[in-house]
């Protein structure tokens, strides 16, 4: 007789983790193909279309990169926050506040600045606003023990309502049928790579953030974040202030979400409008929520989250292609995306265990 036993793996190797991740994706695609098949689509054909919609052409790849930018910025910040167990679900709100502030600085600055300085100021203001918005939760968490998830989540609605108020009220541009602000002056719109929507200044900021975050693991702050995240009791024992850590990571992650918001306004939309955080576009939720998945998928590491941001952006882009070309409902693509995530996260848990076969366990 054979017996099975499950044991905890002490340190899963990198190759094992990569292998399990690949296997998880394959399993998800197989389950997804069942789903597609019941709806009368040819799964293989759809997957090929999806793949070519991501990597198949220059324009597809460019679109993937465009969508990577906000996911990268927010995902990196959330990866850091989650490492410190600061469950920041408020990136959508922080992104919207950043976008509002960026647009405000662009449209209503009472004095003149040279364009490059003006753009820089937009980004700085957006960072500060997103950071400040996130800091509210960190502060209340420290003072009255407000739950971070609830606090950050509810502030998303506050941010959204503020955006709607401005768009339907004081900031609405006269003479346009839509609730938009006036367009940003052309000098303040971010340049893009030729023929694409890739607003490369924001992308460069994103790449710089990844590099800084890789270095962060070698700093005192990085050490403190890890100690605090892995064992808060040991952190306070070591004299690490939980308030300092939570405040720091919330400021950083909120600020990065704010930057992403400025990037979307100045790089993509050139106007402040609803959906500036990516919400509502073809059933996809805000980049701020999708980035939560990015951070988890990237195992809360800087490089991992960067890869995950690109991967998820690819699926979002490819999904559009499949929808347009094959008529597959976008909801189906979202479902497959969900399947991939569930199996990746499940696989991540499984990779911490091993199964042992015993012969004749009596």
């Amino acid at each position, binding site marked *: 007789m054979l017996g099975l036993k499950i044991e905890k793996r002490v340190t899963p190797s990198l190759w094992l983790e990569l292998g399990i991740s690949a296997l998880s994706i394959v399993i998800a695609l197989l389950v997804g193909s069942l789903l597609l098949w019941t709806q009368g689509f040819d799964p293989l054909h759809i997957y090929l279309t999806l793949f070519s919609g991501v990597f198949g052409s220059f324009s597809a790849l460019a679109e993937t990169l465009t969508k990577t930018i906000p996911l990268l910025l927010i995902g990196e910040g959330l990866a850091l926050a989650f490492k410190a167990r600061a469950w920041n679900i408020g990136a959508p709100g922080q992104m919207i506040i950043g976008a509002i502030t960026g647009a405000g600085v662009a449209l209503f600055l009472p004095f003149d600045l040279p364009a490059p300085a003006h753009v820089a100021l937009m980004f700085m203001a957006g960072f500060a606003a997103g950071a400040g918005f996130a800091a509210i939760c960190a502060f209340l968490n420290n003072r009255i023990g407000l739950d971070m998830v609830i606090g950050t989540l509810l502030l998303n609605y506050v941010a959204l309502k503020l955006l709607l108020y401005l768009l339907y009220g004081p900031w609405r541009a006269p003479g346009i049928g839509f609730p938009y602000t006036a367009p940003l002056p052309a000098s303040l719109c971010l340049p893009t790579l030729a023929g694409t929507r890739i607003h490369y200044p924001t992308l460069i900021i994103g790449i710089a953030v990844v590099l800084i975050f890789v270095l962060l693991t070698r*700093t*005192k702050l990085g*050490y403190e974040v890890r100690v605090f995240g892995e064992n808060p009791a040991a952190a306070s024992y070591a004299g690490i202030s939980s308030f300092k850590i939570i405040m720091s990571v919330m400021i950083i992650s909120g600020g990065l979400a704010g930057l992403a918001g400025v990037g979307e306004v100045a790089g993509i939309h050139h106007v402040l409008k609803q959906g500036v955080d990516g919400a509502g576009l073809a059933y996809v939720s805000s980049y701020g929520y999708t980035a939560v998945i990015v951070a988890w998928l990237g195992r809360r590491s800087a490089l991992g989250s960067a890869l995950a941001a690109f991967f998820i952006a690819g699926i979002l882009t490819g999904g559009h292609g499949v929808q347009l070309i094959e008529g597959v409902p976008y909801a189906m693509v979202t479902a497959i995306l969900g399947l991939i995530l569930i199996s990746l996260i499940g696989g991540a848990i499984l990779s911490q265990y091993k199964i042992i076969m015993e012969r004749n366990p009596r």
Partner: protein
Amino acid sequence: MRGITKRFPGVLANDHIDFDVKAGEIHALLGENGAGKTTLMNILYGLYKPDEGEIRIHGKKVTIRSPKDAIDLGIGMVHQLFKQVPRHTVAENIALASSSDFFFPGSKVKEKILRISEEFGLKIDPDAEIWQLSAAERQKVEILKVLCRGAEILILDEPTSTLTPQDKRELFSRLKEMKKKGYAIIFITHKLDEVLEISDRVTVLRKGKKVKTLPTSEATKRSLAMWMVGREVLFRVKKKTVKKGETVLEVKKLRVLGDKGETAVKEVSFSIREREILGIAGIGGSGQRELIEALTGLRKVEEGEVILSGKDMTNASPRKFVDAAVAYIPEQRIEVGIVPTMNVKENLILKDYRVPPFSGRVFLNHVAISRNAQEKISRYNVITPSPDSPASLLSGGNIQRLILARETSSEPKLLIAAYPTYGLDVGSIEGIRGLMLEQRRKKSAILLVSEDLDEIMMMSDRIAVIYEGKIMGIVDADKVSREEIGLMMTGTPWSEIS
């Protein structure tokens, strides 16, 4: 049990062990932590399956697949940590384990409990709720539970670890009575005195192998220790008299609240000088934890003062205490003392990572961190696969050595040690006590909190006994007897004793 072998990944936990226990005897199973005592008994109780070997009960070969099989065969186990429902009554807890009645299972069992507790002198109120009981009473409940299920073979896993000396004596006399009635009792322990006091035979395990089984009357403390550790052990640490220095810590009329908002520490005052060990004795949960936390900045002080070398540190942050060279060996080593998922190297700088040479203004200095790890590992004899292994891989004794290496290497002004040898084996205990005495020689003031009276009496210069958050008395260690401390531990002030 014959030829019992059990392998865990990388470890041979039990290597062809033969073990037997007769009706009407107490058989002690002695060994260091990790010697395989608990594994062997878990096999007997059906929690593990042996890889090899056979078990016979009353001469009949049996297979025990689960604790249920074991219970049906008349085997009962009293675990180190009791598995009880705090909000239920004693009767309900026992019924949970032994009654098959669906409705009001407690009522019928009550009669049985009263009968059995009468028979063995294990007096307990079946209607009391578990949370109201002391550790000793909860243990009685656990033994009753096992007896109610009709056990004839009792396994007791380190039963004295949470008991006061008085409770321990009580337990031992009950066990002797049960022995007379023909029960077979297996007594797991690593305390030599207990083996000599209670057992008829003793089996010594070391590193998964059986060293010896012999009648206890033929064993001495010294020989048992040698078989158990594999070398000579010094029992009495040699405490040289040293000249006390200036007052380091002064605590004045401290009042601290517990987790539930109750007053856990009341009017506590004491002081410790350089080169002095003040031992705090008391039953677990008498306010020791709250007191220590107040002295390290982890808990708020409601009233009173904490003065460190003349400086007021009342309600200073933990960081301030770290900076003021207060070292702290916490009671919860794994939960508080280390970050289990981080490696040994990183755990060794938990208190010092802020300062050179381990870090500059922004970055950590990995060269210095590695060098520090290598030096500490060899100097403090921490056994680890490598400095890069996660701390969770280390054994209890080595985790404690890691913490000691970190806390004592930077010349602390005050060392607070909470239960520093609890649950460790003789070899580790010897090493850790030695390190503390070395620290005392080097000028540190030491606050030692322990439930082990022998340790308190052996190590301390003065002893303060705490009961329900109050100090019952502070006495010189060489002018007080164990019994007097025991009395204070249960609430008699020193003024009424002397």
